[in-house]
């Protein structure tokens, strides 16, 4: 019985985090995760600020799903006013969101391939991602933080040349993703590193409330996009899922989702309606709980506004906190080697920058500020599984 600490800086981890593995020989029997290297207090900063500034702050909660955060905040604000943006704005939001999802999934897979030391596919994925990043920069003006959404619509309009370039680049991305998918499917060594490793059954996934590709890789057929009004009305969207429940399923899921996203973007570009891209909305007092499918899973913004659209109270629930618990509690168990533990950790596509906004709430509901205390996930009591419409 020995302990192996990994991190906070480690070649296998892209973000600072400490994983403590309890091992018998090479086999992992238990694990702990310590967080706290990323705390910035984004929610405290958002309180008492006008929404225009909070949208920029929400973008910087996470740099990888940086479309999903302002998207959720702003659609939430629109629910308060009950103001539906024009159709062209809705379609351009869909295009931006899906392009963001493609780039996020590509980098997640690239990092997984680098974690299992398959550098060819890892670098190929990164290179393909550059084509998507070019599109994002051309459309919005920045490679990572787009500032694209605004209450009542979007900031800028597409030009004809932009739409043409989107279709051209996505055709290339599609053919290359098919190639990588085939390489991953037929590669014998990759199969050894991925199949039957990091198992989490459907029941376990429901118990820890896993979300996003992690849950869908374990056979849960749920995606928040199936409840999004634009997707329901104009896109025939069905969630993708697999039932292998292991690393292979989760990596394959992401390739499949990229292909699905490419289909959605192509349809949106073909059917992009004419018309205005913005509408005037004045935000009154109110509160809302709005959820959206970020690349990593369900993202919830629960907030309250005062007059003139000033944010009074805000809580952000990001997908990684649930997925991390799923990873620590079920996937690490019986991981055959320590090298596989890092590969398992990368398959849940962790985003620690999203996660670290911890506010400690005690039994009486009093809020305490975070003082850099280590959060040990295993010591938390498990959630009792309630029946939910999943």
């Amino acid at each position: 019985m020995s302990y192996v600490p990994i991190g906070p800086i480690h070649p296998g981890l892209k973000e600072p985090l400490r994983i403590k593995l309890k091992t018998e020989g090479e086999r992992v029997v238990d694990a702990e995760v310590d967080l706290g290297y990323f705390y910035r207090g984004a929610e405290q900063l958002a309180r008492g600020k006008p929404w225009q500034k909070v949208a920029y702050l929400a973008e910087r909660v996470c740099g990888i799903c940086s479309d999903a955060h302002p998207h959720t905040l702003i659609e939430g604000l629109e629910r308060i006013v009950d103001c539906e943006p024009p159709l062209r704005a809705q379609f351009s939001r869909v295009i931006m969101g899906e392009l963001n999802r493609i780039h996020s999934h590509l980098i997640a897979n690239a990092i997984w391939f680098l974690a299992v030391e398959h550098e060819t596919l890892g670098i190929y994925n990164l290179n393909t991602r550059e084509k998507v990043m070019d599109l994002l920069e051309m459309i919005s003006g920045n490679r990572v933080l787009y500032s694209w959404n605004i209450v009542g619509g979007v900031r800028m309009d597409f030009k004809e040349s932009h739409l043409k370039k989107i279709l051209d680049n996505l055709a290339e991305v599609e053919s290359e993703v098919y190639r990588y998918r085939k390489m991953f499917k037929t590669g014998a060594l990759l199969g050894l590193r991925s199949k039957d490793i990091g198992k989490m059954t459907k029941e376990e996934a429901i118990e820890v409330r896993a979300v996003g590709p992690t849950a869908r890789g374990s056979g849960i057929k749920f995606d928040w996009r199936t409840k999004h009004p634009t997707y329901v009305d104009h896109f025939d969207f069905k969630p993708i899922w697999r039932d292998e429940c292991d690393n292979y399923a989760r990596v394959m899921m992401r390739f499949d989702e990229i292909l699905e996203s490419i289909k959605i973007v192509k349809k949106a570009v073909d059917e992009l309606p004419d018309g205005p891209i913005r509408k005037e909305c004045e935000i009154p007092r109110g509160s809302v709980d709005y959820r959206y499918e970020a690349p990593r899973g369900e993202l919830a913004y629960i907030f309250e506004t005062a007059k003139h659209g000033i944010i009074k109270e805000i809580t952000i629930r990001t997908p990684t906190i649930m997925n991390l618990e799923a990873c620590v509690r079920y996937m690490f168990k019986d991981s055959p080697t320590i090298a596989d533990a890092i590969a398992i950790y990368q398959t849940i596509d962790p985003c620690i920058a999203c996660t670290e906004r911890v506010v400690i709430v005690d039994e009486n509901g009093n809020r305490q500020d975070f003082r850099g205390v280590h959060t040990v996930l295993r010591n938390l009591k498990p959630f009792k599984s309630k029946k939910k419409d999943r």
Partner: protein
Amino acid sequence: MIKEFIRKRSIHVCLVCTGGCNGCDIEVAALLSQRYDLEQYGIYYHNNPRESDALLVTGTVAKQWQEKLVEFYNKVPEPKAVVAIGACALSGGIFQQESDKVGAPVSDVIPVDAEVPGCPPRPAEIAIAVLKYVPPTLASYRRKI
């Protein structure tokens, strides 16, 4: 002599992320792709401070990092250089508002040799900064007594 000549042409960098939004980190990761191909300029990227010549620091210095970053800096063998990337590392950016949650800028904690402004900077800007400022810093490095 030979050592200095070679060191100019092969820089090992170590990326330290001290709590930003990940934007700058994925821009550094994008440099690995064939399109930018960091290694053709002689820069090798890995996450081990003991083997590296230069630290790339991103992010606001979160509370846990304030002491650890100094330890980390001491582990880098001399001569060494530090490049601060992004608005968060230079001034705290959007997070430096009426709060004591962050310890930015990085230059308060460890000495910084080159700064790359932007939120986030483009990959080309990072590569140019590393190529332009790190070799002269390493050449003119004086050991502290």
